């Protein structure tokens, strides 16, 4: 995984994990590698990965079973809400980008219809 050093790395790792969860690469209940293993895989400091796991646990995306490891949530509601959050973010980025090149929101909707991007 490549990192953009201009923004916090732990956020990028979290983002990637959320994407993997939505894409089904990480399934509900899957066991995550230990923060040590994962940090070595990513070439990162284990503190960074420990932070990722901690933040994701605070968001209820993962949970830790003492002595057993860290697991992806089994709540399909939670996974749906992650999907929703990511979709929202993508739309916000799209809207911002289009606004910067002079589109109004109405323009954007028409544009999408016209260019058949939704077909």
């Amino acid at each position, binding site marked *: 995984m490549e*990192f*953009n*050093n*201009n*923004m*916090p*790395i*732990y956020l990028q790792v979290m983002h990637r994990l959320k994407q993997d969860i939505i894409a089904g690469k990480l399934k509900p209940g899957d066991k995550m590698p230990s923060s*040590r293993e994962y*940090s*070595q895989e990513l*070439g*990162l*400091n*284990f*503190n*960074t990965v420990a*932070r990722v796991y901690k933040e994701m646990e605070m968001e209820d995306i993962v949970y830790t079973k003492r002595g057993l490891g860290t697991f992806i949530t089994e709540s399909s509601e939670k996974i749906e809400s992650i999907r929703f959050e990511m979709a929202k973010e993508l739309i916000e980025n799209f809207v911002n980008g289009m606004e910067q090149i002079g589109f109004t929101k109405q323009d954007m909707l028409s544009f999408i219809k016209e260019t058949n991007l939704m077909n």
Partner: protein
Amino acid sequence: MTQILEINNLTKKYYNKVALEDINLSFERGKIYGLMGPNGSGKTTLMKVIIGLHKQTSGSILIDGNPLSYKTKANVSYMPTENFLYDNFKVKDVVKFYEDMYSDFKTEYVLQILKDINVDTEFRVSKLSSGLVGKLKVALALSRDVDIYMLDEPLNGVDVLARDVIMDIIVKSHNENKTFIISSHLVSETEKVLDSVVFLKEGRLELSGDAEELRQQHGLSIENLYKEVYK
């Protein structure tokens, strides 16, 4: 989180130069610190004072709460930037030398690293490429079992591929009990493993902080922040 290393009002003067001026820093156990700054900013001097090679002019250094002594020095593994290995030695002789020198040296550990990175222990140091010498130096320094590891420019003179290997050795050797202090000009290649950074400028502490917080605050990589600070 305990302070494994505390530097209080540290000043180091030579007869014609102030190498370090009133440095106040504390280092936590288990973190990886990047010590940054241009040549002459005091990074190497700071490391040498911590390891006891130079005596400070004023101020104090505490390692795990204790002032510098032969015991505290033994708790620090220092890798200088120069190639200090004896040319005629074979790699296995160097390993033996370290084993004899340091009671905390983990021979099995270094041999495993050398095996993983394909360093033939029968080779003489003089025959090793700069990349291999770089890897060997780092492997030796990280194979001691101490609390504090200081690597002075571990990526210097090392090719791009070998740099990745060295960063990998560093990450794999690190754990929550060990504190690493790494000085490097190659900020972009080291920054992703750093917990915290310390910027020295002309012997003074210019900036220090958590790497991720600095990225968030400034919207810049540590490398770009470095360029801002030193331009």
